[in-house]
């Protein structure tokens, strides 16, 4: 990696990655200050947000408690629709997580250095979203206290799980994804935890950050291995993230249900996951950068790039919607054709058209630069994309189950209050964790941001020949 990113940015007239007259000291201060704020000075807005999230989390707990007490009958499930909100929410939340890994791993491998200021928050989002996702398969089994049977553990029945079942693949894929993301996130944060340790004033704070920073001292011998380890984690997280949503799609694709049994599912699910995840990242970052004064690090260029990715992935999803119809017609299979006509024009037509409008039509606004640089527009669009992507999973799961081969076994699913409140409560879990993260951990990867600043590159040594940038000289045209 050389120090030419800045030069290229200047040549192409791009905004630099870090704006304003920032040096290493000011970057550290800007990221750490909100985290180091005295507990008594926590802004009221955080308390309000946290209070609401905590209430929703309590709601989730109550709903799950009621579910465990009464059984899955409290949901609107029936025969034929045995999967509805539970698996919809699961796929929705896993999908949200994917953008975090895309930003932290795939963009890292592609040397997209603009990722550095947004990867930490995106990775945190991944972990919290996967936690929300993992809740649903855990609680949707009839006897949740036996969920540990999914793991190949020796126990008295002398049975092993069936490794040819996509549902078991899913267990392995999602657990691996969660653990790998958590390792990636934590290792990436160790140098920043050391920064917080070294800035800590109180004894307790120093102890806590001292323990979690593991005694990191920024030694170059440590940095060398750290960078190798980070690269390897990025390299394995990249196929992993593609595999996770592919495996999730196998849950459907390996069945024989019309509308599920299609080969387009893995890429279609992955594109949708990245699409919804970016929408969630942007939806969270736009307010955060305002509240935490991080506009110079999370710049309009970052936001614009994310809008572009959403435009691209939104079109892929749109292509998949179209291609499903084409394949259904081209297959000559009347059940398959019916499944798709039923999606668009059947009893769930409204869900289908919410999905198409939010996911395909709305993001087209990002063709225009004024929309890609307009914060209220971004907030509205990303919100709608999340709504649309939730409905996508609902449409796939429920419409296919509700009307399969025999009209005599058709049925309709309607959510109960418990269904709706459980979905709402899962947002409580997500936002509680995310707000705790924002309050106590650095939301921008400080050491990585420093590494993309011009002053971070030695001059006149080896082949890193630059023309002598100085700290602070970031203005375009300088």
């Amino acid at each position, binding site marked *: 990696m050389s120090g030419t990113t800045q030069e290229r940015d200047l040549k192409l007239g791009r905004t630099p990655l870090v704006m304003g007259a920032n040096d290493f000291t000011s970057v550290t201060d800007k990221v750490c200050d909100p985290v180091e704020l005295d507990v008594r000075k926590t802004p009221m807005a955080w308390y309000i947000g946290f209070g609401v999230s905590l209430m929703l989390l309590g709601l989730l707990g109550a709903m799950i408690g009621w579910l465990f007490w009464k059984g899955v009958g409290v949901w609107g499930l029936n025969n034929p629709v045995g999967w509805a909100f539970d698996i919809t929410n699961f796929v929705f939340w896993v999908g949200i997580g994917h953008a975090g890994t895309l930003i932290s791993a795939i963009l890292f491998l592609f040397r997209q250095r603009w990722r550095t200021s947004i990867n930490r928050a995106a990775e945190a989002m991944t972990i919290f979203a996967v936690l929300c996702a993992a809740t649903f398969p855990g609680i949707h089994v009839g006897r949740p206290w036996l969920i540990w049977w999914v793991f190949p553990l020796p126990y008295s029945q*002398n049975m092993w799980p069936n490794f040819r079942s996509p549902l078991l693949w899913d267990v392995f894929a999602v657990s691996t994804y969660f*653990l790998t993301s958590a390792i990636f996130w934590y290792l990436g944060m160790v140098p920043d935890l050391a920064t917080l340790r*070294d800035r800590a004033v109180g004894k307790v704070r120093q102890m806590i950050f001292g323990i979690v920073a*593991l005694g990191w001292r920024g030694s170059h011998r440590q940095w*060398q291995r750290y960078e190798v380890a980070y690269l390897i984690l990025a390299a394995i997280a990249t196929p992993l993230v593609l595999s996770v949503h592919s*495996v999730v799609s*196998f849950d459907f694709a390996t069945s024989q249900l019309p509308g599920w049994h299609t080969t387009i599912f893995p890429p279609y699910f992955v594109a949708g996951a990245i699409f919804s995840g970016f929408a969630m990242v942007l939806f969270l970052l736009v307010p955060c950068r305002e509240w935490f004064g991080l506009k110079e690090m999370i710049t309009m260029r970052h936001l614009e790039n994310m809008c572009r990715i959403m435009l691209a992935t939104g079109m892929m999803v749109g292509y998949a919607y179209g291609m499903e119809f084409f394949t259904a017609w081209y297959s000559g299979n009347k059940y398959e054709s019916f499944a798709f006509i039923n999606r668009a024009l059947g009893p769930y037509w409204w869900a289908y058209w919410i999905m198409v409008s939010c996911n395909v039509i709305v993001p087209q606004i990002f063709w225009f630069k004024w929309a890609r640089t307009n914060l209220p527009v971004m907030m509205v669009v990303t919100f709608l994309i999340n709504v649309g992507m939730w409905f996508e999973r609902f449409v796939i799961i429920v419409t296919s189950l509700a009307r399969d081969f025999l009209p005599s076994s058709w049925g309709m699913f309607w959510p109960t209050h418990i269904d709706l409140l459980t979905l709402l409560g899962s947002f409580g879990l997500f936002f509680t964790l995310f707000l705790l993260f924002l309050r106590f951990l650095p939301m921008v990867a400080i050491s990585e941001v420093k590494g993309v600043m011009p002053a*971070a590159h030695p001059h006149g040594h080896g082949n890193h020949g630059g023309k002598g940038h100085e700290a602070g000289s970031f203005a375009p045209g300088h």
Partner: protein
Amino acid sequence: MSSVRQPITDSDPRVMAGFLAEYTTVDDLVRAAERVRDAGYQNWDCHSPFPVHGLDRAMGIKYTKLPIFILCCGLTGLATAVVLQWWMNAVDYPYLISGKPIYSFPANVPIIFELTVLFTAFGTLFGLLGFNKLPQWRHATFSSERFRRATQDRFFISVESNDPKFDREKTRTLLAGTNPSAIEELED
């Protein structure tokens, strides 16, 4: 002076652990590292708030063997998944499903992939910590108040007193000639 850690005074229980030189820019750090390298020191290190590229050569350190360790972990994961699925589903408790073969490799691929990744990830975590000798909550550099800026906005070179070439006077003179913004003695 020998390489043994010497007490700073007879009554002081603290021992001299080495020198710490502080620099304000990356360029100073890299140039100083080249000087220390050329002087033939071994137990020394550079400290920076972010990885400084070009320091490997300036310090004369070799590429790490960490990737080989991680590869071994990944391959262990792969082998584990192959054997685990075969033994559990085809040997110990054979499943007959829809008349399909008892053992079919393609169905095992997803979990082979996942376990390879899982073992690689844990191998990376523990390999990195092990190779870097972390966690290490006690270290001579932590005795310096100044060193707190090593994770923020300053660059440091630490030379440990257990280095065979360490000499209180000569080492100090060497470091003083590298344009440091400060030099400190480390205690342990």
